[in-house]
């Protein structure tokens, strides 16, 4: 693209595109200074947004980094500098291994499960059948509900004594698992509820992507003898690559930051069986009041998210664009 240039005199319109005339002496090009009015306009439009970002995103982020180096009881006007003690404390705490395990299981199950279920639902909803519109609405509806409301609702469903699920299981001769007292069942319960609430979002995005897949490519594959599965595997799925990449990033981030359903249903229990890193940040910061320690965990989670997202951007993104 041609660069904007000004004549030696400084004023006048810039020459646009097209080769310079051979008989003209070459004019040294330099960038025109942005007029102050443009700067004011920029500030008027971008300033409020930048200010909000600085105040509500960057400031807390940096403050959290600062607090992670302090022993600070939340609410206290004073704190002690303890260096990296909060970090070493968290990495050497016997409870940390469990928190990391719960976080990994929850994240992998909700991201992978969400993608598979979401894509399956999108494939179903992409068919031209009667009632598809209603089905689409029903699939997406839970996503717009409040996480706390969803959690409270499912508390009743899973209740072993009074819940619908327990009654159904009893009806087929099975007993209800002790969802609330057994950590081995509590975590799957939370995963199921999270998936129920969020799978609609994945399905919605996949559905939009499926509708953008060129029909002629699928038809060409069919003419070449590809069956429905081969056509999906070799034509549709690769074309969904960018969507899959986008969803993998967004669902991973939201899964790692999940809080509302856990708070409403289990409060991290039983026996810390549903305490993810995100929930531990809340517990330590507000229930226990160790703001410095909580900030250290928040920083670790931030770094983990940053690394995972960077890896996704650097390595996976390359393979999905076409």
């Amino acid at each position, binding site marked *: 693209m041609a660069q904007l240039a000004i004549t030696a005199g400084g004023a006048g319109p810039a020459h646009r595109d097209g080769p310079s005339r051979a008989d003209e002496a070459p004019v040294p090009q330099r960038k025109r200074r942005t007029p102050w009015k443009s700067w004011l306009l920029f500030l008027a439009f971008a300033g409020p947004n*930048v200010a909000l970002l*600085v*105040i509500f995103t*960057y*400031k807390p*982020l*940096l*403050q959290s*980094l*600062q*607090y992670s180096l*302090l*022993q*600070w*009881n*939340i*609410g*206290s*006007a*004073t*704190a*002690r*500098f303890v260096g990296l003690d909060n970090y070493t404390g968290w990495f050497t705490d*016997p409870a940390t291994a469990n928190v990391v395990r719960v976080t990994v299981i929850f994240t992998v199950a909700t991201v992978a499960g969400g993608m598979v279920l979401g894509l399956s639902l999108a494939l179903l909803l992409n068919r031209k059948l009667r009632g598809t519109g209603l089905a689409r609405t029903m699939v997406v509806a839970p996503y717009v509900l409040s996480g706390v409301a969803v959690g409270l609702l499912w*508390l009743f469903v899973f*209740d*072993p*004594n*009074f819940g619908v699920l327990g009654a159904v299981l009893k009806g087929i001769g099975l007993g209800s698992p*002790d*969802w*609330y*007292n*057994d950590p081995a069942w509590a975590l799957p319960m939370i995963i199921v509820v999270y998936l129920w609430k969020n799978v609609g979002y994945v399905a919605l995005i996949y559905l939009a992507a499926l509708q953008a897949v060129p029909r002629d490519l699928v038809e060409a594959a069919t003419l070449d003898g590809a069956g429905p599965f081969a056509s999906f595997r070799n034509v549709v799925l690769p074309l969904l690559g960018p969507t899959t990449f986008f969803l993998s990033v967004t669902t991973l981030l939201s899964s790692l930051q999940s809080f509302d359903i856990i708070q409403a249903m289990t*409060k991290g*229990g*039983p*026996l*810390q069986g549903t305490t993810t890193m995100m929930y531990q940040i809340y*517990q330590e910061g*507000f*229930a*226990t*009041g*160790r703001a410095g320690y909580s900030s250290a965990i928040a920083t670790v989670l931030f770094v983990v998210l940053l690394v995972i997202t960077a890896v996704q951007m650097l390595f996976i*993104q*390359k393979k999905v*664009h076409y």
Partner: protein
Amino acid sequence: MNASPFATMNRRQLLQLAALVGGAGALAACGGPAVGEAGGAATDTATDWAAVTPAKEITWWSNHPGTSKDIESEIIKRFTAESGIKVNLVTAGANYDEVAQKFQAATGSSNIPDLVIASDVWWFRYMINGQILPLEQLAKHLEFGTEDFNTTLYNDYEFSGSHWAVPYARSTPLFYYSKAVWEKAGLPDRAPKTWTEFDEWAPKIQSAGGVTPLGLGKGTSWTAWWFCNMLWGAGGAYSKDWTMTLDTPEAIDAAKYLQTIIYDNKSAAVTSNDQVADFGAGLTGCTIASTGSLSGILGSAKFEVGTGFLPEGAAGPACPTGGTGLAIPAGKSPEQQLAAGMFLKFLTNAENTAYFSSNTGYMPVRTSALEGETMKAVYAKTPQFRTAVDQLAGTRVQDWGRVFVPNGDKDLTTALEKIMLQKGDPAEAFATASASITKSYEENVKPYL
């Protein structure tokens, strides 16, 4: 794939980015705690209260314990009519923890209240953070009679020779039983006097009623509270002052007894969700719940409910107190504090204590209120309430390891849930909790005492 935006950045853009980050850094340096300065409790500074004029308007943060918003509003109305001071009642959370979290987060800003709910597990943290005022001098100036408060309930808020809050909505755990199940089992119409007697009765309850004899609750702020009964009853304790004492044979025996009734005798079960709901639905024959749940249980149960003292252990009766008191924040002006003190005196006088208790089910915190006309009418209407009040005489102040150390209750709950839900080794579970609580005390409490 697009190249990284940083790679194509020119000098000016780089400078702009640096300015943005630098500006955010400068902002980050604003606010937050003062690093390296001496902290700790507020001191009873020599305010000349006689020279202070009370503020015309104050704010009170409450969670309205026992759905008491209307009761609190009525008392405020009476106070305003008498003093001319307006009190803004703010719903600052659904429970004590939520109010505490908001209060902690608001400290240092101009948004703190003039009077705040201070529960048994929170007031001490407020105190060591320097967030609340010691009340002795203010009480003296206001001729605020504190000698009439129930001794245990008032002394719950004592540390370093000062009182940091006064009792308000106070409760104890109480033994509830189904009279219908008891009658079927041929048991006398009373709670078992001891845990040994409960063990004798349990098979009869099980066979006659077809129910789990005892339903136990779980979760933080609850499990380690009612377990005080078994622990103290066995002669053990969570801690002696700041030293954890969960390695004593008495403490281990208490935990083993808990496992025996759950796993061997099957005379007790830990609730899935809410032991009060289970009891109300007739799934269990008896349960331990707060006195604050009395009205709710009496209202929801479809059978006649009996109440009794918590069963005694080998070392005798044992019952902790709980609930909340009220504290005055230290960071307010003397005018606001004086007005808050005047309201506190009014709110907890004998008449209003009786009014509050009779409408909520919480303990009357003043001894003079116990036998007043208002409470006598309550006892006549709801005899079960009398049991709760009588049990108050045998209560004792809670162990510091649970209520004063930031993660004390959480660590003890984890240990007890391991013992109750997974039949974990009591010695091992208690050792883990003790180590964590001791570490937390050394890091989060000791430097501020």
